[in-house]
């Protein structure tokens, strides 16, 4: 579960987030959308404990940030447009490295399971630099779920993927979310967000300007609302 209350973030004198409040319940998939510069990535980096908030309260699975950042990182899986993988290591070596950082038990078995889940078992001994963008992104999801986190953060995970790879990634994201995890995804892709998420939010000018369940929300209405709120 993610709870954010009155979050403010300033870079110098420039406010980026101006009192953001939102909640992502356990097992809920929330898509956060907004124009470039709206503060989406900053918000995600604060929840991931990579950036400190200026003011406000952020709790992840009942751990406070930044005070309990180590505990938050243990329950968090992050997938961004950077894969956070090492090209000079094989798929298995990458997962082993991250597994050791997270202190994952029965690591060899867990790596096998994860490689199966992301469909890369046959490429386990190949260097990641030889992977296509889509394969690297699938392995990146494997890296993020390796330690079985309760909360997943996706920062524009479809960036740079072709149509086929995007569809494959969608299936993987759904299966990851279906395991009862709280998911917060940042995206610019309106149709895809409506299809994947339980709830959509629009962040505009550093504030949550829109928050609605996707059930019964049509793409046309949402696109209209998005256009009006982000002008």
């Amino acid at each position, binding site marked *: 579960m993610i709870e954010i209350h009155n979050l403010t973030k300033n870079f110098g004198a420039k406010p980026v987030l101006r009192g953001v409040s939102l909640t992502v319940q356990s097992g809920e998939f929330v898509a956060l959308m907004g124009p470039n510069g709206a503060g989406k990535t900053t918000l995600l980096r604060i929840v991931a404990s990579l950036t400190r908030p200026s003011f406000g309260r952020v709790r992840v699975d009942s751990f406070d940030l930044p005070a309990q950042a180590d505990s938050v990182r243990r329950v968090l899986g992050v997938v961004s447009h950077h894969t956070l*993988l090492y090209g000079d290591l094989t798929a298995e070596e990458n997962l082993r490295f991250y597994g050791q950082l997270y202190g994952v038990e029965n690591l060899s078995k867990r790596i096998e399971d994860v490689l199966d889940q992301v469909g890369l078992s046959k490429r386990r001994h190949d260097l990641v630099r030889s992977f296509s963008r889509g394969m690297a992104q699938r392995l990146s999801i494997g890296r993020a779920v390796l330690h079985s986190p309760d909360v997943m953060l996706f920062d524009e995970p479809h960036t740079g993927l072709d149509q086929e790879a995007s569809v494959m990634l969608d299936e993987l994201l759904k299966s990851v979310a279906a395991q009862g995890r709280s998911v917060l995804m940042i995206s610019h892709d309106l149709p895809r967000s409506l299809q994947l998420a339980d709830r959509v939010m629009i962040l505009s000018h550093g504030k949550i300007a829109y928050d609605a369940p996707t059930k019964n929300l049509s793409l046309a209405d949402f696109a209209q609302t998005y256009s009006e709120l982000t002008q």
Partner: protein
Amino acid sequence: MNSLNNYLKAVLAIARKDLAAEIRSRELVSAMLVFSLLVVLIFNFALELDKSARENVAAGVLWVTFTFAGTLGLNRTFAAEKDRGSLDGLLLAPVDRTAIYFGKLISTLVFMLLVEAVVLPVFSVLYGISLFNFLLFGVILLGTFGYGGVGTLLACMAAQTRTRDVMLPILLFPVTVPVMLGAVRASTGILANAEWGDIAMWINILVVYDVIFVAVAVMVFDYLIEE
């Protein structure tokens, strides 16, 4: 005890990852090695000196070679992680962030010591000076540790700037003056078969410098690596 175990595992995992990646790519050590050998050769041709004069400048040339080559390696320590965006992967790990510092320090030391192990015999042949001396090896270890320790800390700081390639040497060279002074003086004393009393003070400076700067790194690393 369990958290200490996890911490040590994380330190070793980071060091092992860097070493494995370097074994595959051979980008860093080969560049450091070629650069070191070129520096040794250039000094050899530039300083056409007699034997006693060579003995006087040998330690200085040796440490200039080590530090310049070390800077090449240090420049890539965090910059490579930052460039490929994998630094966030390290920062997201649920361990004390000094584990990143010590993991990086170990891999940097291994790279520097590997290069030094190749440069020493070449240097010995070109300058006609026997460098096979265990006390000298000890000084090289202490000096390399001090240089690598401060360098890893400052490389982390420089990696956050846009001019990091220029920034690291500018930050590093002034701060490492004590370690260079201690290393060069102790090495010169050892090569000249000086009394232990003359050498001990410089070795003490090296030890104290190493301890102080690793302690400082542990205290400030978390703040330096955060945005």
